[in-house]
């Protein structure tokens, strides 16, 4: 096999990955950028498909366009529409073998350093009826509306926690949907008070927020604070939703339940870092609830416990696009400096420039983490009948039974019930199973290295047996 070798592979072409690739390539590092979508931008910039065209661009889109233009001006190999199904250490030497599946990519490439910028996805929030067609994530709704200009439904309930709800609701309203209710699960907005002077400095974000709010107010869509969906109902698809007020411990108050006729429920209870690659590679991780759950441990240059592996953006802890861009630049500088393309003093000067900007964005992320509820706090939205593992169709009752039989960890529940063994490989149920184990065993913390998280194994993407066999030959897998 002819070896395709790069100094740096960046996985993920969103704000963090683009910045990392540009920064490193500009310093002369031979760089490859890989993304699952046909075009760069990721879930934040949400670029239109190449076949679509627009005369006007929104502010965020224009910002994305600019970054993509910068990317185009630097020599970077791009594999787009390409999935990474595994990254393996090179036997007996430094570097990583990156296994790809896609139409135009080679099957394997080699890189000395890896920057993972794999982003995040919506926290899957189980509640009765959440598997009905018509319950979709906030991310899915935004993809449909922004990149495809398609409405997911006519009468919509938007439920969850965080500023993203406002964006989703405003886009749906402008697209022509009726937003029947917006339920924000968090009530203690007073937690934001200490941050007010800081928030006032974030003029871009205030402007964006006001734009969304004015659209919502004009449409007279009710914004209920301290409420959540508690049930989805319908015959084969969503026909109505039950919403309820949450008490101070975030339990639904039965007497407040009311039913609304909707055809779509949009669920946005925060984001989960997409960290399956760094976990599979063996980087050290820990559980940090305010940052979205399981995150890689990193130093100030975004380096993980493995010296040639970096994680940037939401994959390293939820922090938003601005923070992601800065982290991408930091890691790009770090890789260039490792390879001797940037002198020590130049690198230090670059870090210095980025540090205060980073701190501001970290503070913003910290505020969001404190003010809005975390999905893990809303475990009581599910009941024993609720499906927790969507792939293997395992209910909360079955998980409870496994725990009564003696299971004390996420991995033990998996062995007894098959949770996390389906197509999604546990991405949908891991946090819920973790919550169930903690709730039903009374443990307040589960060590992720002692069965508190699933073990992640390749392939991370679906592939044919033929494809896998060919790759295994090239990889010299002995088992």
């Amino acid at each position, binding site marked *: 096999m002819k070896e395709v070798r790069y100094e740096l592979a960046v996985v993920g072409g969103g704000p963090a990955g683009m910045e990392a690739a540009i920064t490193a390539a500009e310093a002369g590092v031979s760089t490859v950028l890989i993304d*699952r*979508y*046909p075009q760069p931008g990721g*879930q934040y910039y949400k670029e*239109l*498909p*190449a*076949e*679509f*065209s*627009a*005369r*006007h*661009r*929104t502010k965020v889109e224009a910002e994305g366009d600019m970054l993509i233009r910068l990317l185009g001006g630097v020599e970077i190999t791009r594999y787009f529409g390409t999935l990474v199904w595994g990254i393996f250490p090179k036997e007996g030497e430094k570097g990583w073998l990156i296994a790809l599946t896609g139409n135009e990519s080679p099957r394997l490439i080699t890189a000395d350093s890896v920057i993972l910028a794999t982003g995040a*996805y*919506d926290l*899957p929030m189980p509640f009765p009826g959440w*598997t*009905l*067609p*018509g*319950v*979709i*994530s906030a*991310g*899915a*709704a935004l*993809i*449909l*509306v*922004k990149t*495809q*200009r*398609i*409405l*997911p439904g*006519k009468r919509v309930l938007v439920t969850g926690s965080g500023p993203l709800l406002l964006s989703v609701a*405003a*886009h749906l309203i*402008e*697209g*022509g949907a009726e937003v029947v209710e917006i339920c924000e699960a968090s009530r203690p907005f007073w937690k934001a008070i200490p941050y007010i002077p800081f928030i006032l400095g974030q003029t871009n974000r205030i402007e964006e927020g006001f*734009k969304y709010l004015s*659209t919502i107010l004009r449409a007279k869509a009710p914004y209920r604070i301290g409420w959540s969906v508690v049930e989805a109902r319908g015959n*084969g*698809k969503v026909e109505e939703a039950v919403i309820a007020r949450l008490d101070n411990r975030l339990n639904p108050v039965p007497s407040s339940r009311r039913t609304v006729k909707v055809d779509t429920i949009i669920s946005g209870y925060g984001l989960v870092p*997409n960290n399956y690659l760094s976990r599979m590679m063996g980087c050290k991780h820990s559980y940090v609830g305010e940052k979205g759950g399981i995150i890689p441990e990193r130093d100030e240059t975004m380096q993980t416990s493995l010296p040639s592996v970096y994680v940037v953006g939401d994959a390293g802890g939820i922090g938003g696009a601005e923070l992601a861009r800065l982290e991408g630049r930091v890691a790009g500088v770090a890789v260039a400096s490792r390879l001797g393309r940037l002198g020590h003093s130049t690198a230090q000067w670059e870090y210095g420039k980025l540090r205060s900007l980073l701190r501001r964005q970290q503070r913003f992320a910290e505020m969001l983490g404190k003010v809005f509820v975390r999905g893990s706090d809303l475990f009581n939205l599910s009941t024993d009948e609720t499906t927790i593992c*969507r*792939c*293997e*169709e395992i209910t909360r009752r079955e998980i409870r039974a496994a725990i009564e039989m003696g299971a004390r960890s996420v991995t033990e529940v998996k062995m007894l019930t098959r949770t996390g063994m*389906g*197509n*999604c490989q546990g*991405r*949908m149920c891991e946090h819920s199973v973790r919550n169930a184990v903690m709730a039903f065993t009374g443990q307040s913390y589960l060590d992720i290295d002692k069965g508190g998280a699933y073990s992640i194994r390749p392939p991370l993407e*679906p592939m044919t047996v033929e494809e896998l066999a060919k790759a295994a030959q090239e990889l010299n897998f002995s088992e």
Partner: protein
Amino acid sequence: MRIEKSTSLLPEVKRGRKVQITVDGKPIEAFEGETVAAAMMASGFRVFRTTAKDKMPRGMYCGMGICFECLVTINGVKNVRACLTPVTDGMTVVTQEEVAA
């Protein structure tokens, strides 16, 4: 349905070339650049598959290739994620009735 009007958050776009695909034998209109999932949603398809164990309907959930709920059979290939697959003219899409292994 497709959004046709132009607003400040959603400025008007020109879609790709019009194509036709079939979903469960029914011809539906789609535009190049759309994903199979989006084209199906635009034509009112909500159910993408029926589960093996409990025979429950499922539709698109995460929209970004993570959840595997939108698996359909495309041009004879089973278990393809509709949310990551762009439409092509003449494509045949079949929703899946899954059977227990």
